[in-house]
């Protein structure tokens, strides 16, 4: 992963099993969100490849890429809801684009998706008319509109109070259990990592590579990397890293 000659992360190699809640973690500016953007096909890796069920997204035809994208649901850090559309219109959009549901069926599905995230009855509200936590849940409703096989989240709990954050974690866990979806989540919320994460990768800003990989509990108790242990136990034995600061400013 690189911007021009500036390498963000290198030598990344890991698998995500079906049904995992996979956590991408690391300090600020280590390239977590960039890795997610690579996984979503928004940026092509400068070297190597990302495979979905053995198929490379970047080498697939435009039609294959569309088919693959339809199996993904994405919830961005700020929600990414279209501000000029109501919540119902936001959620209905992928259904209108990619399914053959009739108008009334779409209305029923939208009502169900909103109910699922605790927003039943909010169809006619605009994103600006609801709170930040509700916007995140509405974004989740849009992300699951097409019953995706893989759900991607970029900092789902950022800016939420602890109760809303916990409820969102429970919702993600419940969705994953009920639908069997795989979840890939970028976060540095320790509570979320331990509550729902099944496996995690730690990206290091200093060495610019992944330095540990495994179940969050196992990494906390047995990781040989001091920085991973510190991260997962919220302790700090060294000061701010200048590498991180310079990278964050890129």
């Amino acid at each position: 992963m690189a911007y021009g000659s500036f390498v963000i992360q290198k030598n990344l190699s890991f698998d995500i099993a079906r049904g995992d809640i996979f956590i991408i973690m690391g300090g600020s500016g280590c390239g977590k969100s960039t890795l997610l953007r690579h996984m979503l096909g928004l940026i092509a890796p400068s070297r190597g490849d990302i495979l979905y069920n053995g198929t490379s997204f970047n080498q697939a035809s435009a039609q294959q890429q569309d088919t693959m994208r339809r199996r993904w649901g994405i919830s961005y850090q700020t929600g990414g809801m279209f501000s000029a559309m109501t919540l119902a219109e936001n959620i209905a959009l992928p259904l209108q684009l990619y399914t053959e549901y009739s108008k009334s069926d779409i209305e029923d599905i939208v009502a169900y998706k909103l109910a699922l995230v605790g927003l039943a009855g909010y169809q006619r509200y605009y994103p600006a008319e609801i709170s930040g936590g509700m916007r995140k849940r509405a974004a989740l409703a849009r992300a699951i509109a097409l019953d995706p096989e893989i759900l991607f989240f970029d900092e789902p709990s950022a800016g939420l109070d602890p109760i809303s954050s916990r409820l969102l974690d429970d919702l993600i866990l419940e969705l994953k259990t009920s639908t069997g979806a795989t979840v890939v989540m970028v976060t540095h919320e320790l509570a979320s990592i331990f509550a729902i994460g099944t496996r995690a990768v730690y990206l290091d800003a200093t060495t610019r590579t992944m330095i540990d990989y495994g179940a969050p509990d196992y990494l906390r108790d047995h990781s040989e990397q001091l920085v991973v242990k510190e991260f997962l136990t919220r302790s700090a034995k060294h000061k701010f890293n200048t590498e991180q600061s310079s990278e964050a400013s890129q």
Partner: protein
Amino acid sequence: MSKPEATLEIAENEDRDATVFLAGDWLQGQPVPDFNDVSSQLGRMPSRLVLDGSSLESWDSTLMAFILQCHNYCHDHDTVFDTNALPTGAAKLLRLATAVPAHKPPKTQKPRWHPVRSARALVSRMGGVIRDSLSFTGEVSIALARLLTGRSNTRFEDFGHYCYQAGPNALGIISLTSILVGMILAYLGAVQLQQFGAEIYVANLVTIGILREMGVLMTAVVMAGRTGAAYAAQLGTMQTNEEIDAIKTMGISPVEFLVIPRILALMVTMPLLTLYANILGIVGGGIVAGGMGITPLQYFSQTEQALALNHLAVGLIKSVVFAVLIAVAGCRAGINAGRSSAAVGQAATEAVVTAVVYLIVADAALNIMFQVSLV
């Protein structure tokens, strides 16, 4: 092998229990039974509705939307809804979907149209806009006074950048519009003047018309659409990103910090652009005059006679006034923008519309003023 079709069957017993047997694939793209089939097939409202999904093959949100409708139907009719025979995942999702009671949006009654009430609302809205405009103009005046007395927090580091954005970057579009306006003016005049054999006076018409009116006005309209809208979008985005809040909480006036450099940049560049537009407008007129048999020497000699300092001054004075109006309209729209991406677009539109109205009103007022003072 074809997929098993989604079906439902309803069985009712004497205890007023109804069981809906769901079978097959309830998937997107498959024909599935409608919820209305259930409500219409039920003879009378059962006391208990059981959903039996033991024969379901595979399912997605299509089934869940159906189940939720059944749940809401039972809830509305005080009927017991039994989901024990549903697949575990579906039952879990239903529990999740019904965990929070549905929000009932407040009923807003649309008031009936009433001419007096509508007129009053319109006047009130216009009053608000005028009050806001005056208030903003006041803030700008105070900020300018502080700048002149050396007590301002105005940041001049970006001044050169604003000048470059408003000036050299606009030369292409100004060139095109000015030449064309000069040609149009010459053509309109020539058609009339030819009838009297006075084609040579096209040069006078173009020179005076461009210097006093069209050169500066067209430049101002282009700048309102280009720079005014850009100011509104820049400041509107800053408002959305809470940058303006950050400036205020640092104790810095956003007008001094953000608005004044932009106004000054436009005040510097507009007269220069107007001069440039004037020259190209006269050249544009010359092209049309050439087509009518007037030699370049005759045209420019006649232009020289018509070219008076007072005409040039009128255009340049207007350009400074217009610059202030465009910058104020753009910055006001940006600073007062809402906090959504749609609001940034609205601010840009408002900036252009307001600036064009300001320009026309100011142009009329300045023309009357110059007429009275015989400039």
